């Protein structure tokens, strides 16, 4: 019951005030194998409600895979994902949304892209209209409603993708390197959207390899190396005084090849 209330957009203050923040999502002994290789190798982490968790690490360390496992897009080979203490199910997945590095725009107008997502999530009638208008405003795409989404600039597309994800009132928003291919101005706009969402109480899980972005947006930080968690902690702490060799090497711009096996 509580979850339903929160889902329809009640101020998130309700759970932000609850201290200490509960673990909304947990990975327990999470493994994923692909092509005969163990790509995610025994990950145990907690994602705390109302926090902004940064997933960092070099290319190919399994950041995207971890996000997809937590979001339920792929099934773990071993281990499990818990949503509020219970195995992640359809109900839990409905409280999540994800934005991809390359925004997936339907071959439709900007507005129709929003409408599709809302319709799929069961929003109808006047409520859907209200949410559409909110999202258009949030993404600062007013006036482009009837424009084909795929002719928007990369920055506009990513703003639309974030607004579309948020329109469905998720409790958790996963973002997989959302600004990796954007210019600084567009990056700033997307980061602003993420801050606003967080201010509205949405839990953020953001994969990035941009240390600056991690500093700007991160509360908690998970540093990954070779499919494992190298280090976790408060974002500023990890970024300023990394304890693991992997994180230190990365932050100093050195290539770290230790297989850590």
């Amino acid at each position, binding site marked *: 019951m509580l979850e339903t209330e929160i889902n329809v957009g009640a101020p998130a203050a309700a759970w932000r005030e609850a201290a200490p923040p509960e673990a909304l999502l947990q990975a327990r002994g999470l493994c994923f194998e692909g092509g005969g290789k163990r790509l995610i190798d025994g990950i145990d982490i907690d994602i705390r409600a109302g926090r902004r968790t940064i997933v960092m690490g070099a290319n190919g360390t399994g950041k995207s895979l971890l996000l997809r496992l937590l979001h339920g897009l792929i099934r773990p080979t071993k281990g499990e994902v818990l949503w509020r203490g219970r195995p992640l199910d359809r109900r839990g997945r409905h409280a999540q*949304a994800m934005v991809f590095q390359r925004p997936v725009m339907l*071959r439709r107008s900007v507005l129709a892209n929003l409408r599709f997502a809302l319709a*799929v999530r069961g929003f109808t009638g006047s409520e859907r209209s209200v949410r559409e208008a909110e999202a258009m405003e949030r993404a600062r795409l007013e006036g482009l409603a009837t424009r084909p989404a795929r002719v928007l600039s990369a920055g506009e597309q990513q703003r639309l993708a974030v607004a579309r994800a948020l329109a469905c009132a998720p409790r958790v928003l996963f973002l997989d390197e959302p600004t990796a291919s954007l210019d600084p101005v567009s990056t700033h706009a997307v980061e602003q959207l993420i801050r606003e969402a967080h201010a509205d109480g949405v839990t953020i899980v953001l994969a990035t390899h941009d240390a600056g972005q991690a500093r700007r947006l991160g509360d908690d930080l998970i540093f990954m190396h070779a499919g494992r968690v190298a280090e976790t902690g408060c974002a500023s702490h990890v970024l300023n005084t990394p304890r693991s060799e992997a994180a230190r090497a990365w932050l100093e711009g050195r290539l770290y090849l230790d297989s850590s096996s």
Partner: protein
Amino acid sequence: MGSFMGSLGEAAGLIMALDADLLEIIGLSLRVTLTAVAAACLIGLPLGAVVGALRFPGRSLAGLVLNALMGLPPVVVGLMVYMMLSATGPLGVLGLLYTPTAMIIAQTILVTPIVAALTRQVVEDLHTDYAEQFASLEVRPFDRVVALLWDARLSLLTVALAGFGRAVAEVGAVIIVGGNINHVTRVMTTTIALETSKGNLEFALALGVVLLVIALVVNGAVMTFRASAARMTYA
């Protein structure tokens, strides 16, 4: 070469004159083919989209079968439909043999695999693009199919045109089930076959040029529509 140029001249003459008999034949050709393509799209688009977008046991076999059926020889389809509609066949009581309806049925069977197989390819490609977003939104299978068909609609127009091309050009199926009866089931291709066997080669070729012009007009109309629709909705 002389007779080829003669045919072109004769074709121009035919198009200028457009006598009632020729118009009737052109009209029936278009009616049979367009109806068959519409029916084939009604069946083939959802079928192709389901095979292209959804995961189910036997999916790759279904794709393989659709692709193989694209190669169905028109004569074989004609024979199958003839045996079904013949007075001694299971559907003989309908009395459809040697009617335009029989021709529509045969061409629908001929075109549906083409529409379905090409739709499968188009939808599968688009689905590759959409799959993660769909999974993230938990779009139900039915909604996926509808969304993919809608978003691929302009590519699917080309698919329908491919079906039209196959149907309007085939003679093997319609001549068997239609019987090429003058003023009843005589269409462009059966007329061309008839005139060829009468040895009126120039006239037959002229009719072929007329058929080509019709196909050009239909394709041109659809592509023009597609281009303007693309500017409106697509990138």
